[in-house]
């Protein structure tokens, strides 16, 4: 493990330096609502257990314009919205959300069609994660291939050692970022050992442990299982779980008319739980009730996505559990599936 040591003042200084040259996003507290936002000073940063809205929305915005179109001389001119070529720093991302980006990467960069909007931003982004020392009962990252101190998806990982911070270098990108900064000390052996100690404690404190080893195979034979008819009943079909999920990436597109001869194509988040998500132009809806939609959510995350990308499309952050208006708990559903 290689890293640098900062005290609180030095960390603020480091971040303020970053702000001078790059766009820095970090968790803030806006009247009680915690989310990631662009900061102009390190004093705006608010570290809570987990922000309400995940950092997903920085790289995959809730609403973005893809291109504009204009009717000119009987022809239609398209102008693509180019993602700005600027360096972005995402600071304070928990390991679960960082892992979420890896999962979205796979979906958005596979095959012939690359999602240039997301990928361009991703290329320009350095992720400075913050390790999670006190996982909650609703966390289950270790059950889905992650860890509270996971290094997947981060370029640098910040550890809170009490009176000081250790900024661990994880990737080459991260190394390049702090390589030139000589004024911060290198992490000593004792510091590294402390990180290893708190990492062990954090992992062991994980209360929710789900046995999901063969869930993909299990679900292979469960498409017509009567279980789905029971599970979906209390779901009201809103989009809270999908919107807050760090790995959900479904979107819708529509055109907004600006004048009679110009408009723009806009992309917005969509949710497989919305009743009209699969409504086809013919009027046919292959997922007409909540049963099909709940089944879809579970199959996508734990069967279809693993088949395509060799990974479970869930990072165990627990937001869907805490924020679901009717307390439909994914852990309960997973246990039911595994014991079916």
């Amino acid at each position, binding site marked *: 493990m290689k890293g640098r040591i900062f005290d609180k003042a030095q960390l603020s200084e480091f971040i303020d330096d970053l702000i001078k040259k790059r766009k820095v996003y970090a968790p803030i507290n806006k009247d009680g609502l915690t989310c990631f936002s662009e900061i102009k000073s390190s004093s705006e940063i608010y570290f809570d257990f987990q922000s309400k809205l995940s950092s997903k929305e920085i790289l995959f915005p809730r609403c973005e314009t893809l291109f504009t179109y204009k009717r000119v001389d009987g022809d239609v001119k398209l102008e693509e919205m180019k993602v700005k070529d600027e360096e972005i720093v995402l600071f304070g991302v928990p390991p679960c959300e960082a892992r979420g980006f890896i999962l979205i990467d796979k979906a958005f960069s596979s095959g012939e069609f690359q999602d240039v909007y997301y990928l361009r931003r991703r290329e320009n982004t350095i992720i400075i994660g913050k390790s999670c020392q006190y996982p909650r009962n609703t966390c289950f990252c270790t059950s889905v291939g992650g860890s509270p101190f996971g290094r997947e998806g981060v370029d640098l990982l910040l550890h809170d050692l009490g009176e000081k911070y250790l900024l661990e270098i994880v990737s080459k990108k991260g190394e390049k970022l702090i390589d030139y900064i000589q004024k911060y000390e290198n992490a000593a052996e004792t510091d590294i050992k402390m990180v290893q100690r708190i990492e062990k404690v954090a992992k062991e404190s994980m209360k929710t442990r789900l046995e999901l080893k063969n869930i993909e195979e299990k679900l292979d034979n469960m498409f017509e299982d009567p279980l789905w008819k029971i599970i979906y009943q209390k779901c009201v079909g809103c989009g809270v779980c999908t919107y807050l999920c760090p790995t959900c990436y479904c979107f819708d597109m529509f055109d907004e008319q600006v004048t009679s001869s110009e408009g723009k194509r806009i992309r*917005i988040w969509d949710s497989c739980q919305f009743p009209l998500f699969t409504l086809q132009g013919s009027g046919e809806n292959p997922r007409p009730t909540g049963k099909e939609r709940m089944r879809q959510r579970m199959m996508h995350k734990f069967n279809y996505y693993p088949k395509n990308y060799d990974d479970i499309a869930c990072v165990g952050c627990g937001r869907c559990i805490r924020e679901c208006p009717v*307390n439909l708990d994914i852990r309960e559903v997973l246990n039911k599936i595994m014991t079916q």
Partner: protein
Amino acid sequence: MLMVDSVQTMRKIAKRLLEEKSVNLIIGYERGTLPFRTTPCFISDVKEVDRLIWDVTCENNLAKYLKDRGEKIGILAKGCDARSIVACIVENQIKRENVFIIGLPCSGVIDRKKVESELNGKEILEATISDDEIILKGEGYNKRLPVKGFLDDSCVSCKHRNPPLYDVIVGEKVLEEMGDDEFISTSKIEDKSIDERWEYFTNELSKCIRCYACRNVCPLCYCEECFVDQNMPTWLDKTDNISDIMVYHIVRVFHTAGRCVDCGACSRACPLGIDLRSITQKMVKLVKELYDFETGLMLEEVPPLATFKQDDPQEFMK
């Protein structure tokens, strides 16, 4: 009657209904997966009636689950929930003979967000809930909180704690406390100037992420195709522009005019804690002031926007 005694009565009733096959399904509340939560439950097996519970965390409006069910259902309904059921029957979404209402006289449910705020966001590891007090334990704290101090705002000013319609009632009716200003959620905003009000609402609603939790938990929002999803013509865009967000909320609240019972489910469902009742309650107040109408009290009521009086107020007309 203590809520814990009510639970026994409720379970007996449910058991009898299922055994006699008076209903095919009971919709009620059961313990949730987090220490301080209950969740809707659907019971068709008489052996499972002991899952049913009743306490101050039973916050969901179960009337949501009654639409489009051909069978006879038994449903546990607080005062506001029963009013929603009446409103749905009046609008022909539910058949009266298909629903057996097990009425729950209610003294209010807890606002989880107020409790979370009191705990500074710390995780609740253990919760003991009684009628007057909740004892919450977590990392480094052990707090006793009075239920009365943490009631949901819709419960503080509630005037219909007993279900106005029921087939059987669990325990005795509770006192309909008149309480303070029934419309306090709107009064404090009406006192502001017009620009202050606009600023307040745009500020609050700018947090909205259009997850539609507010719409989806409302028993009266049952349209197969909501106005937000209509195109040809498109009523409003789904962008995060504040104008679109405001229009969504204004129109949604307008669509609940004369139908909203102020149960507070929308406000509680919002993941961002937007105080939706500051707008929904205004519509309830307007309907009461202008047309002397309160939704969901009688099966014979006529929705105020489906009728008129010759002398309806019209000073605003030129």
